[in-house]
């Protein structure tokens, strides 16, 4: 085993208070990391100002400091504790920014603290738009036309060269705060102004719009031997223009051929190598022109990201835990796969189900706020659901939101056609229900696609759900046949929705429908035995066995 012995004490920085763009996911990754490092015998020093975190529980780190997250305070802690290393990649953007600050002020050098996981140069290369662009050019990857400006005068100068619509992204902000889209010169002036104000270094990126393009994410990991693996691919239901944190996202990617998927895999590995993240996980975002298949790199997070939490739970591969172990010198082939035990972590998870993530918003508390979804993140949380079919996964996610909706029905019968169209064109948290209502009213997939730019594969899935809804509504509990009811359950219809459609009670539906099966998330599509009971519910078709005595056993396979 190649664990580093030149370091003993490791400093971890948490992500501070919960804000939009940086919530519980970094408590999850930090806690996993701290536990993994302690397991290896390292002394873990943790700093975080947020008491409502698991990581600040006394038994997680060896020493925990509840202090403001500033370089000044961190210097004092470093001075006192004298850690050998700082692992900055598990605490979100806050931790990364503080690590940059500590390095630039010479504090890490002064106290001889090594940065592990990602070093200063790698973080800078990924975070600084200009350096990132140069790095991508070097490895032959395309990015949207863009320029960084520090003043309004500079911005106005290049306005025509980029053209409209243009995306405005302030540098070094969390969850894209201050980001916006300008469609004309007037909007451009006001939005660049607020972007410059939002950026701590008064800098914004102006970028060619790829609004309406398809969007994908890849979770990639690398070890010190330069072994690279992809943990998960994610496809955004909402096309480019909506912040990934506000988008409905699906794992694995649904509409990529192998040629395209392998291009993204090759690109992601090239990106993590060129940026120089020596060990750990990164998240690379791409957009794709739906007409030509051309890919652009959008950005790269040289750290465990919001999507890493989703990817970990979507695949059963604990990204933050493995990232921590890679940071102290292990290689992927030296670490076991947590779930299968007997196979190594140097593999790529394969999944035999569909994962849907839907963001949760809280606009009810802020009725004046603009609910339009843009490149600035507005959601306050998210839910994830797993199903054997896309339809099941999606409908489960909708009801997990706890918005009083139990599927695609949202009482929109009285909405005008204008309202329907408007709500499909302009993305808001309610868009999917308006899409469903449009299909109820006979809109075609092409029409909804033209308004939303959402891939036709996703739209067809929703349309099929609505078509089945209509078919079910034409029946009663007495006339619906077992095959149709089984199909409805496999497509994720809740008992409550079925009761509404069949004008009966949930209890009556439950008496008549098939039983639930529990399936396992195991990283390997059942190729190997799983030792971790991590389940999701599903409704499965019938399996049987002709026994040796000629009798027949019929069952629905459940693993719990």
């Amino acid at each position, binding site marked *: 085993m190649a664990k580093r012995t030149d370091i003993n004490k490791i400093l971890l920085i948490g992500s501070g208070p919960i804000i939009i763009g940086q919530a519980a996911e970094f408590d999850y990754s930090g806690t996993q990391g701290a536990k993994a490092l302690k397991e290896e015998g390292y002394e873990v020093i943790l700093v975080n100002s947020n008491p409502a975190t698991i990581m600040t529980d006394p038994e997680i780190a060896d020493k925990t400091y509840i202090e403001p997250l500033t370089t000044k305070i961190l210097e004092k802690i470093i001075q006192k504790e004298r850690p050998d290393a700082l692992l900055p990649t598990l605490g979100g953007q806050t931790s990364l920014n503080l690590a940059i600050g500590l390095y630039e002020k010479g504090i890490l050098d002064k106290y001889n603290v090594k940065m592990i996981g990602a070093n200063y140069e790698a973080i800078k290369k990924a975070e600084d738009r200009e350096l990132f662009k140069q790095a991508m050019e070097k490895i032959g990857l395309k990015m949207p036309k863009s320029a960084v400006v520090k003043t309004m005068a500079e911005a106005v100068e290049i306005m025509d060269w980029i053209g409209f619509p243009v995306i405005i992204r302030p540098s070094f902000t969390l969850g894209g705060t201050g980001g916006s889209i300008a469609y004309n010169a007037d909007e451009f002036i006001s939005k660049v102004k607020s972007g410059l104000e939002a950026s701590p270094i008064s800098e914004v990126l102006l970028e060619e719009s790829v609004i309406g393009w398809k969007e994908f994410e890849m979770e990639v990991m690398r070890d010190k031997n330069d072994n690279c693996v992809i943990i998960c691919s994610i496809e955004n239901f909402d096309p480019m223009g909506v912040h990934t944190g506000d988008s409905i996202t699906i794992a694995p990617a649904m509409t990529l*051929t*192998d*040629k395209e998927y392998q291009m993204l895999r090759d690109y992601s590995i090239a990106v993590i190598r060129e940026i120089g993240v020596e060990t750990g996980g990164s998240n690379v975002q791409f957009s794709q022109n739906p007409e030509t298949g051309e890919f652009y790199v959008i950005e790269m997070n040289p750290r465990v990201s919001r999507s890493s939490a989703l990817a970990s739970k979507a695949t059963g591969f604990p990204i933050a835990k493995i990232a921590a172990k890679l940071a102290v010198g292990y290689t992927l082939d030296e670490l076991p796969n947590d779930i299968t035990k007997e196979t190594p972590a140097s593999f790529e998870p394969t999944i035999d189900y569909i994962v849907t993530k839907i963001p949760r918003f809280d606009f009810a508390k802020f009725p004046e706020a603009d609910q339009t979804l843009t490149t600035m993140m507005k959601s306050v949380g998210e839910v994830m659901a797993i199903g*054997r079919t896309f339809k099941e996964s999606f409908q489960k996610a909708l009801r997990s939101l706890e918005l009083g909706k139990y599927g695609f029905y949202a009482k929109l019968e009285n909405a005008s056609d204008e309202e329907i169209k408007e709500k499909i064109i302009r993305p808001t948290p309610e868009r999917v229900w308006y899409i469903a209502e449009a299909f109820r009213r006979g809109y075609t997939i092409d029409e909804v696609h033209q308004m939303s730019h959402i891939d036709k594969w996703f739209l067809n899935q929703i349309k099929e759900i609505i078509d089945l809804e209509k078919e079910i509504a034409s029946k009663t509990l007495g006339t619906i046949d077992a095959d149709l009811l089984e199909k409805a359950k496999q497509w994720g219809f809740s008992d409550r929705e079925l009761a509404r459609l069949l004008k009966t009670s949930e209890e009556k539906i439950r008496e008549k429908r098939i039983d639930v099966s529990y399936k396992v998330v195991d990283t*390997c*599509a*059942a190729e190997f035995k799983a030792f971790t009971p991590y389940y999701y519910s599903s409704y499965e078709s019938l*399996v049987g*066995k002709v026994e040796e005595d000629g009798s027949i056993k019929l069952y629905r396979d459940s693993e719990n």
Partner: protein
Amino acid sequence: MEKAILALEDGHFFYGYSFSSTRSKEVGGEVIFNTSMTGYQEILTDPSYKGQIVVMTPSEIGNYGVNSEDVESDRVQVNGFVVKDISSIASNWRAEKRLQEYLTENDVIGIFGVDTRALVRILRDYGVMKGYIGIGDVSPEEAVRKARDVPDISELNLVKEVSKPEVYKWTEGSWVHGIGFRKIENPKYRVAVLDYGVKKDILRLLADREMELTCFPYNTTAEEIIDFNPDGIFLSNGPGDPEILHFQIEQVKKLIHTDIPVFGICLGHQILSWAIGGRTYKLEFGHHGGNHPVKNLRTGKVEITAQNHNYATDPKTLPEDVEITHINLNDNTIEGIKLKNKPVFSIQHHPEAAPGPHDSHYIFDEFRDLIQSFKGK
């Protein structure tokens, strides 16, 4: 959409529905599962799947349709195709038709709605089995009986069915986005390919490396190959049990006694294993997927590989002059060997991927370098 039943020889059966419309309403074959999350069209057209019913573990299949580029041979090769869910539309910028039409045109049975995970768990626990798919009203008893009547794959000469009967040239290189398949001009090396059911992407990757490829049928003699005076010899992938291919093993024995560089992939690797005095054995449920970790023992690096094989070389049977170059980290089986005193090596997995990761493309460079260093000797 008719009802369908899939039965295994051990008595298990699964219900689903057909999604292709075929002349024959039943088919038998060896049932295996594949865990690749992309690339169903490449899998369907891979000649190595001849004789097999392929179960896909990813649950949504058909999403991006099919096109005329993502093919590994000129037709669908699998005996039958089993999925959890099939998309009713094809959505991709290159899609030309839906999977439903594609299988129908190729007259291959596809079924969906099957609890594929339950099926995979049975194959994992009890090993690969013979199976039968019946469309329409087929009773479980009849389906299981027919599954038991399916001939064992080791009794079939499948290579004969998928190898092209004539000698042919190959000049097409790999696919590049925005360009399509590259045209290879002025190749430098003359390479003879023994076509046991070769995948097109193997030929493309060899062609990329300046090789002028001439493909010979599976029953070509060693003398014919030697008379052709090649700079290198390639032994291709292909279907079925290597142990029954006595003629081919005998020819390869003669070929490795020349000083012409020889490179084999998958079945080619297994035939080479027999030719050097080793033996192969059947794996419990095979390796079929795009996520297997393989360690290169010379560099210590791990490659994520595409795999499709039911047989493996037994390390205990290999003579002393053989070096094991690659192993599978999941089960430590052999993934690559080379002869210590001859320019001969082979790989068990699929460095060409298609579908799968590109980590092992360097192996084709090694073949070119070997040819280069022996050319003119």
